[in-house]
């Protein structure tokens, strides 16, 4: 692998080993804000065209093409005003921990991405919607915003930090708009999409932190360079991560399309005495893959071909000593607690599934429970619920039953958790 540098690792090459953040001077010293300078020489439509050509796709989990999202906003003197940018820095999905790194260590990179986006869509105001628990990010972003404002580095956009008070639904894009308006983070009906009618009914871009952090380098080095960073048709690099009982959990910026096995190797493989049983490739809402899938490229299409998704690209490793029913019970408990209650299959069904799984893990499962769980999950499909929270819960549940049905059956038949050695 080549030494990390700007042309190979545009997101992370300037991060310091000790984790201290780059201040404005240090950021400028490595050509920071040059992407914005390049953008300032272009018409908004040319910026959008460049981002489209780069094949940058959203890093928040769904992978929507970023340039396309920006191109939806009404432009010109007759467009509704003001227009907004809402930066999704909620990062509450279990197993996902990548945006924190960028905000803590290179806050100006995000600010520059916001400023370029603002120019591209003629937005006046940007809110960074940060989860309340990220207190170090908050301190560092506040400092960076103050530095940038004092130096008038951001052009015409006003950037404000909104620190949330914690709820997974705030990360869902329309839930986030409600939360920014001071309401419960219930989802909104789509269409209209936020690009047409978002915050306070005005056109709004919602983008993930990592997505926006990719934009400055695209402006500086061009769409073609960016596309070529990737091993696949989805442009750029990706920050991949690994957690679970591996030797070296962590985060790495790698070419988009790096395989599951290569990423796992960087994490040093499994801890001594443990074997890989499965993995959730990109956070709690992605379907489980098995050791048969080590060759799958982590991009927006290859995992889908084997029934999963790249999601946020941060993998959760399941080892052979862990109790899978316990893991699934933990996941469904999360989704059940965090459901906003807006639709019945979600608030009622997740609660029911959670109780069934807890009972099963405690040795009180009944014959037929597995079928009940499958039946409940069948009401959480896309289109059956208001937003993607319940579909996100269905994926790990259904896939774990599919790949590891025996574990569920053993719990029911033996009236206990058979994983004696497992001590969570």
């Amino acid at each position, binding site marked *: 692998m080549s030494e990390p540098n700007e042309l190979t690792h545009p997101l992370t090459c300037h991060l310091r080993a000790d984790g201290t953040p780059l201040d404005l001077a240090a950021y400028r010293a490595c050509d920071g804000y040059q992407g914005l300078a390049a953008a300032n020489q272009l018409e908004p439509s040319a910026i959008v065209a460049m981002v489209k050509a780069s094949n940058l796709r959203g890093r928040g989990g769904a992978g929507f093409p970023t340039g396309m999202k920006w191109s939806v906003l009404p432009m010109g003197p007759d467009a509704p005003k003001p227009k907004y940018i809402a930066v999704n820095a909620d990062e509450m999905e*279990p197993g996902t921990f990548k945006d924190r790194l960028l905000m803590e260590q290179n806050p100006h990179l995000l600010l520059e991405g916001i400023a370029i986006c603002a120019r591209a869509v003629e937005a006046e105001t940007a809110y960074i919607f940060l989860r309340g628990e990220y207190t*170090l990010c908050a301190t560092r972003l506040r400092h960076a915003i103050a530095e940038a404002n004092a130096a008038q580095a951001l052009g015409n956009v006003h950037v404000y930090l909104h620190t949330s008070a914690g*709820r997974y639904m705030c990360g869902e894009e329309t839930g986030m708009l409600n939360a920014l308006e001071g309401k419960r983070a219930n989802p909104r009906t789509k269409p209209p999409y936020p690009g047409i009618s978002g915050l306070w009914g005005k056109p709004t871009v919602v983008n993930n932190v990592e997505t926006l952090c990719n934009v400055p380098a695209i402006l500086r080095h061009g769409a073609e360079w960016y596309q070529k960073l990737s091993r696949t048709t989805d442009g750029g690099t990706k920050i991949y991560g690994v957690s679970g009982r591996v030797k070296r959990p962590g985060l790495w910026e790698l070419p988009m399309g790096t395989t599951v096995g290569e990423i796992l190797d960087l994490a040093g493989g499994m801890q001594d005495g443990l074997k890989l049983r499965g993995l959730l490739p990109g956070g*709690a809402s992605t379907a489980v893959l098995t050791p048969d899938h080590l060759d799958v490229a982590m991009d927006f299409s290859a995992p889908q071909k084997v029934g999963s998704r790249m999601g946020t690209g941060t993998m959760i490793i399941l080892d052979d000593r862990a109790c899978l029913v316990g893991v699934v019970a933990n996941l469904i408990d999360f989704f059940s607690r965090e459901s906003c209650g807006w639709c019945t299959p979600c608030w009622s069904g997740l609660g029911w599934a959670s109780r069934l799984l807890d009972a099963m893990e405690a040795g009180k499962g009944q014959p037929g429970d597995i079928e009940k769980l499958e039946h409940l999950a069948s009401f959480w499909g896309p289109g059956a619920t208001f937003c993607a929270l319940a579909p996100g819960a269905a994926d790990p549940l259904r896939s774990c039953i599919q790949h590891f049905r025996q574990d569920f059956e053993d719990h029911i038949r033996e009236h206990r958790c058979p994983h004696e050695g497992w*001590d969570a």
Partner: protein
Amino acid sequence: MLTPAEQSEIQSEVAHYPYKRAVAIDALKIVQKHRGHVSDEAMDDVARFLELSREELEGVCTFYNLLLRKPVGKHVIWVCDGVSCYLTGYGRLCRKLESTLGIKPGETTKDGKFTLLPIVCLGACDHAPVLMVDDDLHRDLDPQRNPGAVEGVLKQYE
């Protein structure tokens, strides 16, 4: 009544939004910072200030995990129960906290020093299991792999 300090902090947030009610969550966080939790009285004070009904504000307040409607101890210990922590020693960490503090999740120690509460993934999964005390994140706290770490963390708080 909101204190002058609370009022000015809330007012400076209002300046960032086109509508006053947008700061409902910030305002609740601000009174909680000053008063420890959001009491019934605080709820009334904020509702009056933002010209919202008490019921509407209650709906907002109860939605968010970090807004506390009941009194808590001097320090809140938030233990991550996300899946990566679950896989790497969350259970051992919880039992250690429960035995050291003599309380269960949701409870406050007799001396009023600590309240123990669960929280969803803290986004530090590569250093699981983790917890947060007030605003500080503490990582790699499996009592098996890192003996003494939990005690070390608790000692930092007066």
